[in-house]
């Protein structure tokens, strides 16, 4: 039996990080994610971990990468403009394959936008925010309990695949308080990065001859190697205009693509016999679940597909859904972003209808139900 607590989403995220073995946080105050930092500012010094409030969002992301290279499981949390500012260094972590977790508690945008209201309009930025081609894992929990467990999973995926993992939830779920159970140590799996076993003289930090995820040495442990944001060879040193760049970037993508079965997680709710599907995540997924129940009460066969992994996108699952239903309703707190992915995977096999809202309030179950009735 674990510990029962009443926590808000942001606090549950911090608890999830600690459960996963996070010992390093660097951040910068920004609404609506600040409580993650505040919680860890209290907790990390108590367990000999590092808490740093840096001079800006860019510095926070940089410090997190430094902390991870020195062997700490590292976290940062931000929102809106802060997420934009972190993009360059997130790309650095992707190319240099440094594990770390980035929390984006989404608010309205662009620019300063609606700092105190929920948003889901960063979801394409989560996928494509940094320049260049890059692999992305992004998780989208919708409940406080789920934020806890998905934060643990984010660290695990990050350590296993040596890549940054983004957790994107929204202001409502971040600030909502719910009962959660924090499992005892050992109940949820905790994954640690694989370290090299070869002698330092033989260590090649990006040697892919034995698999797509090379073992990672921490700094100061005897493996003196080079880390650079330039494209690099297996030894970590820069290469220019080389076929190696192409094959190595393909490998980075493959770390995620080839492991989709493990990475992609979702909930299906009353979807087996549904005529109308709803594709929704985060707070919109919560409204959609209620809408499904309202529809069923009226005898309408609606069902919900709620991704907990939004990137890589659950292409196969959405394709299959599109073969079974008349239409898919996509409610999102944006002017229409993730609907493009649903549309792409449905290939015209069923109708796709979006519900968009960016005024700082969530989409209501009634709004979704009305659209379900149109599609039916």
């Amino acid at each position: 039996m674990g510990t029962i607590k009443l926590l808000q989403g942001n606090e549950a995220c911090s608890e999830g990080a600690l459960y996963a073995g996070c010992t390093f946080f660097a951040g910068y105050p920004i609404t609506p994610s600040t409580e993650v930092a505040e919680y860890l500012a209290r907790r990390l010094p108590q367990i000999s971990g590092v808490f740093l409030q840096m001079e800006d969002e860019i510095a926070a992301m940089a410090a997190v990468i430094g902390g991870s290279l020195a062997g700490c499981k590292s976290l940062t949390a931000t929102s809106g403009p802060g997420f934009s500012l972190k993009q360059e260094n997130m790309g650095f972590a992707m190319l240099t394959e440094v594990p770390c977790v980035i929390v984006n508690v989404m608010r309205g945008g662009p620019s300063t936008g609606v700092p105190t209201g929920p948003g889901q309009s960063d979801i394409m930025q989560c996928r494509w925010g940094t320049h260049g081609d890059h692999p992305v894992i992004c998780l989208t929990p919708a409940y406080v309990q789920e934020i806890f467990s998905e934060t643990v999973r984010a660290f695990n995926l990050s350590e296993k695949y040596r890549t940054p993992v983004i957790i994107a939830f929204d202001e409502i779920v971040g600030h909502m308080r719910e009962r959660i159970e924090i499992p005892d140590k050992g109940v949820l799996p905790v994954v640690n990065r694989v370290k090299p076993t070869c002698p330092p003289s033989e260590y090649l930090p990006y040697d892919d001859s034995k698999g797509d995820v090379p073992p990672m040495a921490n700094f100061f442990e005897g493996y003196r190697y080079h880390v650079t944001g330039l494209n690099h060879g297996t030894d970590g040193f820069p290469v220019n205009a080389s076929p190696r760049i192409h094959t190595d970037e393909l490998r980075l993508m493959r770390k995620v693509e080839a492991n989709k079965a493990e990475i992609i997680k979702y909930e299906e709710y009353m979807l087996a016999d549904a005529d109308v599907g709803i594709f929704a995540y985060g707070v919109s997924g919560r409204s959609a679940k209620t809408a499904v129940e309202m529809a069923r009460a009226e005898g309408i066969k609606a069902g919900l597909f709620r991704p907990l992994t939004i990137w890589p996108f659950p292409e196969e699952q959405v394709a299959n859904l599109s073969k079974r239903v008349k239409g898919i309703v996509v409610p999102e707190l944006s002017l229409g972003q993730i609907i493009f992915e649903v549309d792409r995977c449905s290939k015209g096999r069923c109708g796709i209808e979006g519900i968009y809202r960016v005024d700082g309030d969530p989409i209501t179950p009634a709004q979704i139900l009305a659209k379900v009735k149109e599609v039916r």
Partner: protein
Amino acid sequence: MAFDYDQYIRGGKLPHIWCPGCTYGIVFKSILRVVHTLKLNRDDVAMVSGIGCASRLPGYVDFNTLHTAHGRALPFATGLKMAKPDKHVLVVSGDGDATAIGGNHFIHACRRNIDITVLVFNNFIYGMTGGQYSPTTPSGHLATTMPYGNIDTSFNIPELAKGAGASFVARGTAYHAAGLDKLIAEAIQHKGLSVVEIINACPTTHGRRNKFKSPTDMLLWMKDTYIPAVAFDKLPPEKTAGKFPMGVLFKKEGVPEYCETYYGLVERLKKQKEGRA
């Protein structure tokens, strides 16, 4: 016997990228001599850089090395140092890297007085991108983005560092190489944020556009322009025009160092917890 630099240089990584006449090689060798003199264990040294010509240096040396994004060396280094406070973290940066795009990180690292050694290679220009003016380009100098002469005002890096809270500030030049060894050694040994501004020459993108006929002219300019601080301070104002002091310019012991303060807090919390138990 000549000093064996090879023991600290990674096999097969030379030649370096620096142009003929560039003075970075002089500083590079100085750093290696100092690491040797101080008997630093290579496993315990991290060298972190941003982007620019100077930032390529870590690739050549046999330490834990991290070549990061433009301007960001210091926050990356801060992460490393906070995670492993007993290790030596050296940052190499250029004038643009440290004081333009990385200016905010520079002043805040100084303010924190975290035990990192920052070596700022000041060559007064953006060299790697071909000669654009930087925050240290002297007024009136020509640069590709100041084709009519620099109308901007330049930073005084040591004054900036001191004002922001660094507890050790020094200036050396590539011309005064022997003195540079002493400054870098003292900077590494100092507990706290130490900044050494190292005056360098970029003949390719700065010198040849600004009436320096050869790299040697640029070194001779350093010889004439930089005066030991002790002597500089005694000169009447009319004799210091256009000249700058070098050497240790500011040093303050006993300023709280960030890692020490942070881990002191960790210890205090641990004792409180034990007291309660």
